[in-house]
């Protein structure tokens, strides 16, 4: 067929839409912060801000990995379960110290990611079903290894320092969160690897014809996703003082929501790490705001309303995104 690569919508428009979406998430975030600051006391307090960031660090890491996977046109449904598994492993290894407590779970995450990657890239199986199966397997492994209960961390070995150490009054998880995203933005903006990731998501066949090593790149993004999920599990264990085999349920779906809200195309080819960051913060902030609102005592929203609000929010955001993309520039 003698036609040029014409994606579903013109790339200039899609780029603009993606940009607006990412920036749109930033704008929405800013507005929400403003709203909270004006309406609630202590919203911008050091305590609230730092604990908010520290708690959302794990979701942030997972969403970062998810961004790269989605940019290749894939998906990773296993990350929540991998984080749970990693938290259990971290707890069990924690007595060997902080370094081991980080390295081993992350390694476990990498290995799982590699398995996903091999099945997707060389096995040519659909990412959805592969990572769905891995979700079950990781969950099963986590529960088995942990004996169906949470596993306490070793409090003597210095592992919990990860949750408590502060540098310039910011806890370690916040630094990890920040550094990860800084690296992510750098990688996405400036490395050949990121160009290849995006080209593959854009049109895999063409990328192959242009000589890219599609399989290798895919393997790497799934391994990266696994590694970040592993790290998220480490934070989970450090912050809660125990490895939780039953945690992480639904984390992958909120990560996907954050990625989509942030402007990355679900079909791949265009993405924004910064956008994902705003998406993560935005989604997390909704819960934060709801808590404050409950605290005021005027309305009392049961926690169940949170999911409704979150769902509605996702709905509105994607609706707006699609509207934006449809309007001619």
């Amino acid at each position: 067929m003698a036609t040029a690569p014409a994606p579903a919508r013109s790339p200039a428009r899609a780029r603009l839409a993606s940009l607006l979406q990412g920036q749109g998430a930033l704008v929405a975030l800013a507005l929400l912060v403003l709203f909270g600051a004006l309406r609630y006391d202590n919203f911008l307090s050091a305590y609230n801000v730092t604990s908010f960031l520290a708690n959302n660090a794990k979701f942030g890491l997972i969403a970062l990995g998810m961004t790269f996977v989605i940019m290749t046109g894939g998906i990773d449904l296993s990350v929540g379960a991998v984080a749970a598994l990693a938290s259990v492993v971290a707890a069990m290894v924690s007595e060997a110290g902080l370094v081991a407590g980080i390295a081993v779970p992350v390694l476990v995450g990498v290995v799982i990611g590699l398995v996903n990657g091999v099945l997707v890239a060389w096995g040519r199986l659909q990412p959805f079903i592969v990572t769905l199966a891995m979700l079950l397997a990781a969950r099963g492994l986590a529960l088995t290894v942990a004996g169906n209960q949470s596993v306490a961390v070793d409090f003597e070995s210095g592992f919990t320092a990860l949750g408590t150490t502060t540098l310039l009054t910011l806890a370690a998880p916040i630094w990890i969160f920040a550094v990860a995203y800084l690296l992510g933005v750098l990688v996405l903006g400036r490395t050949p690897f990121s160009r290849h990731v995006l080209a593959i998501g854009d049109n895999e066949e063409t990328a192959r014809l242009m000589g890219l090593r599609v399989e290798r790149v895919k393997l790497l993004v799934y391994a990266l996703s696994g590694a970040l999920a592993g790290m998220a599990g480490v934070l989970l264990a450090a912050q809660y003082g125990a490895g939780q085999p039953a945690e992480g349920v639904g984390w992958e779906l909120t990560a996907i929501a954050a990625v989509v809200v942030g402007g990355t195309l679900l079909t791949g080819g265009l993405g924004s790490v910064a956008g994902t960051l705003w998406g993560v913060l935005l989604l997390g902030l909704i819960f934060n705001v709801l808590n404050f609102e409950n605290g005021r005592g005027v309305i009392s929203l049961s926690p169940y309303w949170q999911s409704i609000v979150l769902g509605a929010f996702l709905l509105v955001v994607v609706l707006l995104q699609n509207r934006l993309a449809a309007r001619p520039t």
Partner: protein
Amino acid sequence: MTATGPLLHMEGISKVFPGVRALEEASLAVGRGQVHAVMGQNGAGKSTLIKILTGAYRRDAGTVTLDGQPVDFHSPQQAQAGGVSTIYQEVNLVAFRSVAENIFLGREPRRLGLIDRRRMHAEARELLERLGVHVDVARPLGALNVALQQMVAIARAISFESKLVVMDEPTSSLDEAEVATLFDVIRQLKAAGVSVIFVSHRLDEVYGICDRVTIMRDGRTVDDRALADVSRLELVARMLGKELAEVRRSGATGFTDATHHAEQRLLEARGLRGAGRRLEHADVQIRAGEIVGLAGLLGSGRTELARAIFGADPVEAGELEVDGRPVRFGSPADAIKAGIGLAPEDRKSEGIVPEMSLRENLTLALLPAISRYGIVDRRRQQEVVDRFIERLDIKTTGPDQKIRELSGGNQQKVLLARWLCLDPRLLLLDEPTRGIDVGAKGEIQALINELADSGLGVLMISSELEELIEGSDRVVVLRDGRTVAELPHEAVSEDAIMEAMAEGPAGDGEEQGGDGQG
């Protein structure tokens, strides 16, 4: 190391796909610093041979020797690394990435491990300037029009230090000036000792730039000669497998030269503009019993016009009348009800439902008519299918064979039957003989002729000039989404069409250059 012997020697190449023998002991020999044409009808095997050379397919048998060494490319990347660069007919670049990124994808200039964007942009700009192209290399590729995208693809191909550059129909989207630029580039390559394989069915161009020609037919190599030694007519005859005298007499296609007796006006489109920028202001009329050819360069809006008429794409402006009454088709279903059918350009992506059988594909549009209370009447379905298999001589193991196993020609017949079984009044055919072997091609052309004879109106989009010339009663030419010429039967000739496609009507004053969209 002395350079003797041909640069490239492919010998005894065979390749079989399920249900079809694509290549049978084909061969190709390209000399050093030579521009070598490969010609043949669609389905002759040129594409397959090229894809084997460039690593996209694996050969079943035969040898490939490049620069004295036997090679076996498993992937396009290997071919590239081995010194073979390719420019494909479909612009094989990625739309969201920028022009510069596309040119350097896979070998980005780096500094400290990170992309050296400034250098990449500078080098990209320089490469494109050599081709007379001035664009903002930071823009996404997909924002450019098709011709410019093709130039970017060319820039990429020649920026590798290759021994051999393969060009597969590289001029299908280029205007005269761009073709001239490409030829300059080819001469530069030649002077530098690089060989070029030029796959094309444009005789003028082949004679304009190539030294030798290899002719393929039905999966075999039937000739390998210097172009100086073979006349155009003879070349065409060899491609078709006909005797020279016969070609002279009855033409190169399955169409006869007789015009049709056109009657009442079936459809009139005025000033159609479609969503997106490819269709700007197009007019066309089609009468019952006539074949209107629609010509234009790649990206000129032909397909978009057909789709807009059919209701497959929204119409932003303009009028459409059927039988003199204004209509607005909101979807293909509406157009179908009005007795119109559209056979799309790309069978694979828009025509066949690959997992379904021939029977189901053929009757897909007929389902509402052969269903009672929502249940498909199998007997009626079978009857229709049997009738059309016979009438169109569709070669298949049975109506339940999966359509993807059929050859291109037979698939196209099934797709045509999809419309014919609805008894339409107007058929919009987008490249009806593309990717089809010679035999089936002639059959389909003859069928289209027959249909027009029996009173159907036909709009035929084609990029094969002989098809347009021999088949159409009139030819409408599009350029940049506008109707620029309408040639009555007497005025239809290769020169007239090409001139209209490339330059538009005299005194148009429109400069082609820069990129399309804002």
